[in-house]
């Protein structure tokens, strides 16, 4: 029997010592900010009828998602984002144009209009393109890492993916995480408990006291963090990613926060109870982060304002450029479904 990796809990971290993550915070915050600004724009484009099919935002998830991916290295590591991972995608190096092109259906985008919104990726650059079926990415990342092990290039590599509280109820999550544990893969599985799966609260989703209690049952390390506290989150992600990188096997990180938007932009989230909206969980990670950064002397308010203005300008210009690009055209698309076109029906 394999010795159990202990479950660590680190809800409370000593705030006087930022040294562990101080140098990482600017990078993380920048990814968070860019994601927030970008998604605000996506929301207005959706409301203006410029985006079809739905817009699903990561508002409130920026600290967790951005921190996780900030500790990953594009070209080396793997990051399989899910619905609310714009900050992580940005931190991992996804270009702004990949986002606007996919949302606005430009044929120049990585999905060429064949797929849209969050269903995009650059699998050859370590960022798989999610499918809708929740939980599917866990085994996928496990397989990517197993391949690297067989190829002798697993050394120093981490594979990460993220899911929601609702996605933990899928068989795919269970089978995938168990497989990763059996293979002792350098993997970080981030579960963001944003209290809801669409409209469904935790009480109809699971019955354990805390999702991090699942770690022990898989024989993986568990980490718990309040997801809107940037410093705590950064420290936790740094620790989890390093533990995975250093041979500690899969790391299950559970972050609590509140989704600060509807499930999609069509949803007003009126089912979120007032008490929850008034609770500490509802604090916006952006504001918390800005307070922390200013307090710690990392940035001044005016620097933050400047960064934001620049992010806004970048997004505006990406959208403007994308809007001039062509939509896909059925006669120009080759409709190829397989590499071996000749084997298509």
């Amino acid at each position, binding site marked *: 029997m394999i010795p159990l990796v202990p479950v660590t809990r680190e809800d409370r971290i000593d705030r006087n010592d930022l040294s562990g993550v101080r140098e990482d915070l600017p990078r993380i915050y920048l990814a968070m900010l860019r994601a927030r600004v970008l998604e605000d724009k996506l929301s207005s484009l959706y409301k203006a009828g410029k985006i079809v099919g739905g817009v699903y935002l990561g508002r409130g998830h920026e600290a967790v998602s951005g921190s996780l991916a900030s500790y990953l290295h594009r070209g080396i590591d793997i990051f399989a984002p899910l619905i609310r991972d714009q900050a992580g995608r940005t931190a991992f190096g996804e270009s702004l144009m990949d986002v606007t092109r996919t949302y606005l259906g430009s044929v120049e985008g990585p999905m060429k209009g064949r797929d*849209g919104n969050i269903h995009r990726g650059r699998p050859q650059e370590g960022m798989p393109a999610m499918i809708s079926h929740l939980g599917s990415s866990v085994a996928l990342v496990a397989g990517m890492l197993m391949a690297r092990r067989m190829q002798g290039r697993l050394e120093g590599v981490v594979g990460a993916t993220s899911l929601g509280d609702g996605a933990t*109820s899928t*068989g795919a999550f269970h089978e995938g995480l168990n497989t990763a544990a059996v293979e002792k893969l350098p993997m970080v599985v981030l579960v963001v408990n944003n209290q809801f799966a*669409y409209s*469904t609260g935790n009480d109809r989703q699971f019955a354990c006291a805390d999702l991090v209690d699942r770690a022990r049952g898989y024989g993986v390390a568990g980490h718990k963090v309040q997801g809107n506290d940037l410093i705590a989150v950064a420290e936790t992600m740094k620790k989890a990613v390093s533990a995975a990188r250093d041979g500690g096997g899969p790391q299950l990180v559970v972050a609590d926060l509140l989704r600060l938007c509807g499930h999609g932009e069509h949803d007003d989230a009126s089912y979120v109870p007032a008490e929850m909206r008034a609770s500490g969980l509802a604090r916006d990670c952006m504001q918390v982060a800005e307070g922390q950064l200013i307090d710690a002397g990392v940035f001044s308010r005016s620097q933050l304002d400047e960064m934001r203005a620049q992010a806004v300008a970048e997004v505006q210009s990406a959208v403007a450029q994308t809007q001039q690009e062509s*939509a*896909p055209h059925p006669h120009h698309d080759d409709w190829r479904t397989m590499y071996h076109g000749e084997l298509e029906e």
Partner: protein
Amino acid sequence: MDFSYIDAIHAALNDSLRDDDRVFLYGQDIGKFGGAFKATKGLQDLYPGRVLDAPISEDAMAGVAMGAALEGMRPVLEMQFADFSTIALNQIVNHAATHFYRTGVPVPMTVRLPSGGTPGSGPFHSQSLEAIYASFPGLVVVTPATVADAYQMLVESIQLEDPVIFCEHKFLYRWLKSSTLQGDGLPIGKARITRAGKHATVVTYSAMVHEAVRAAEMLYDEGGWEIEVVDLRSIKPIDTDTVIASVARTGRLLAVGEAFPWGGVTAEIVSRVAADAFHLLDAPPARLNARDTPIPYHPKLWADHRPTPQTIAASLRNLLKY
């Protein structure tokens, strides 16, 4: 007052809950929230304890429904999208569908699959999986195309002792309206002549019935062609008699479907007609389906992926020319 297709589904659920204590609803976000498409809006308040939110566990949802059916309930499962029912396939096709054959004990459960494409929904929220389910023994698979059928066939499905896959078309949800929920009372298993004609028969079902009628109108305007449109209503069982009677009148068959083109309903229709009514055919029986690619996200690609009145009309012109 007008009823939309989704109103009809809502009414069928409401009336079934009202009239039969054995009925309950189970699915993701169907409780207070009323479901992703509002098919169950307000029902949890009206029928407390009988409209239950499920975890994101399609396999368990189907297992739960089957278990409840064995104990005398009439579960109605809502899959949030038909596409997610692949996760539940095992419980549906191996557990529920085989049960009567194996044990003699029926499994009266209904699985609602919000099916079919809408612009911008992409590869994972647009699929039409009726043929997958029809391939397995033991299931009834219904595919209503009208508001009244959506109402009546759902009520009827819930009352059947056998497991029913109820494929409701998302494109019709809000677009299709009717002044009444009362239909012509055709039972499950009977097709309907939606539009009478004499020059060719289009056999289809679900949203494509409306596209076929449009194509028929185009051809009538164009050259006075009278195209008969047969709405299968259920694709398992298939009402082969009505289909063949129509082909007997017209001598020409086009089978149209929105699903992927390999196999499926149109192949089943064409091969039945070719086998059983060969001598009635004046021209090769034809098929028109979606393309054999995942369903594209972009509305411009999507519109070219599935049959449209234009492409149906084009297929009919070829058929009439023969």
